[in-house]
């Protein structure tokens, strides 16, 4: 009996070990392309452009110096940082106020239809908006002006933000609002002084999601920003591997820097963010 159970536990352990090794192998394979990008970014030129595959070589920061000192890339970073920050703050504030309106007023006329429309915009093919929006912004004199990108990214992120915050606010008991209202607080005061401090976990998810999707966005940035000084990171980076000879070492280095902000945001908020986004996607 004793020998049987030890054999069984041993068998069990072997199966566990096999599962873990197999699982981690697949995951490493999945992560490899990016690990490779990071390795290349620290590799000297002459060891990049060789005909044989090598995992380990000497390490240098030359690519980073070259990119940050002798290329327009830092300028793209500044442009992206400004546009993404402003549009994130705008999306969070506007969606919080709207979500509060939807959450605390259950029966105003048109509520169902408006909410439905908000959800539908998420299914909307963005790409077909680009021509009419180009024309609209041309009229307003906002082509090659970051304001047009800020507006676009704010709008792009609103539907998901409203939807996610609505779910969050519904879980916050209304007693708090009532108490504040009895103290004579106005609705805006309630939203920003009572609700905001409680709803911050939802707001963080919304903010990170808004920032990352603005940071990643390519098509609008490509179309609306026409001069090189106004380009954002994705478009600038894409220009580095355009039609002509490509300096892959700089592309890989720029790729690492481009990924850094999203990587950091996700590392800090990993568990929470993942469950929120997954839940949001399924319940949407």
């Amino acid at each position, binding site marked *: 009996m004793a020998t049987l159970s030890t054999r069984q536990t041993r068998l069990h352990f072997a199966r566990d070990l096999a599962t873990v090794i197999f699982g981690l192998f697949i995951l490493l394979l999945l992560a490899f392309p990016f690990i490779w990008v990071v390795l290349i970014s620290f590799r000297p030129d002459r060891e990049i452009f060789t005909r044989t595959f090598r995992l380990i070589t000497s390490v240098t920061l030359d690519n980073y110096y070259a990119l940050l000192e002798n290329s327009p890339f830092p300028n793209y970073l500044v442009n992206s940082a400004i546009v993404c920050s402003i549009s994130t703050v705008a999306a969070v504030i506007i969606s919080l106020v709207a979500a509060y309106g939807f959450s605390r007023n259950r029966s105003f006329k048109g509520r169902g239809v408006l909410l439905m429309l908000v959800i539908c915009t998420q299914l909307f093919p963005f790409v077909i908006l680009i021509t009419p929006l180009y*024309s609209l912004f041309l009229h307003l004199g906002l082509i090659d002006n970051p304001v047009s990108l800020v507006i676009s990214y704010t709008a792009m992120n609103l539907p998901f933000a409203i939807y996610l915050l609505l779910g969050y606010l519904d879980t916050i008991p209304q007693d708090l609002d009532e108490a504040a209202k009895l103290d004579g607080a106005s609705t805006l005061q309630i939203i920003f002084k009572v609700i905001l401090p409680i709803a911050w976990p939802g707001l963080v998810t919304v903010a990170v999601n808004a920032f990352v999707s603005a940071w990643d966005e390519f098509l609008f940035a490509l179309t609306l920003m026409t001069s090189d000084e106004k380009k954002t990171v994705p478009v600038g980076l894409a220009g580095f591997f355009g039609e002509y000879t490509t300096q892959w070492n700089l592309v890989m280095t720029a790729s690492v820097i481009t990924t850094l902000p999203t990587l950091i945001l996700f590392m800090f908020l990993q568990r929470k963010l993942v469950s929120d986004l997954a839940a949001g996607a*399924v319940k949407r």
Partner: protein
Amino acid sequence: MSATVSEQGSAAGAARKASTSLHWLEPYALILPAMAVLAFFFAGPAIYSIALSFQQVSLFDLGKPNAWVGFDNFVVVLSGAGLGAAFFNTAVMQTFVTVLLRLVFGLALAILLNADVFRRWHLGWLVRSLVLVPFVIPPVVAVAAWKWLLDPRYGAVNQLLISVGAIERGIPFLSRTSTVWGAVETMLIWRELPFVVITFLAALQSIPKELKESARIDGASEFQIHMRIVLPMLKPVIAVVALLTTIWTFNNFVYVWLATRGGPGDYTQVLATKMYTVSFVDYRVGEGAAIGVLMSVIMFVFALAYLTILARQNKGKG
């Protein structure tokens, strides 16, 4: 602090009493900013785009009064040689193939990673971090990484294939018609797989353990448990993920544009890149808008299906 709040409060309270008749306006006032932004960004342009599709417009004539030409743009677009191919590429090569493979791989990977041992050995954080790697990478970077991996001369994939003797000279994956779709689909699936895995993982973790446990005691094999219990329970999630990824992928522009610009020739042209090219490279905005209208008609059908499923699921929950 509290004093100022209550002072402001009493003033506000008095003001509110005076305006109770306007109280019904409050929800509209709260959602107005959001609705205004959405109307400017979605509703206005959508209607404008329909108008453009019936006009003869070039990119430089935008905003001037243009000639209305009825369905001419649609006739030109639909009778043009490229549209059928672009539709096939969009529907089958870019969307159907990649959605199907993402569902299959995503489900398999989620079931594997849901194994109890990862939790017992405290490897959950490692699993989550590694799964997320492609997800945190901007699509532009994903394309850059894969273009470099697939480079005919210096790319790691070709170098590895040469070193094991599978090929003698590097394959230019992105400029050969036999390999280009496989390459683009690989990039897309790689970047978009984590979303599917994470969503399925969350759904798997919500299945009560007792269900599987009792089936195991009844002598069911792991395979039977997954086929008979887990899959049926995941069906609603699978349906939602399938539809959402279909809608997102159908409209996708960035992978084909950055990987191939629709090439070699027009071989990988999809509707989104075709629309962009017609409008912004050939300057025929009216025809571009017509392609956009056709795309949204197709998408409308999918959106309707999605909303129907969603409504049915919500009703099921009560």
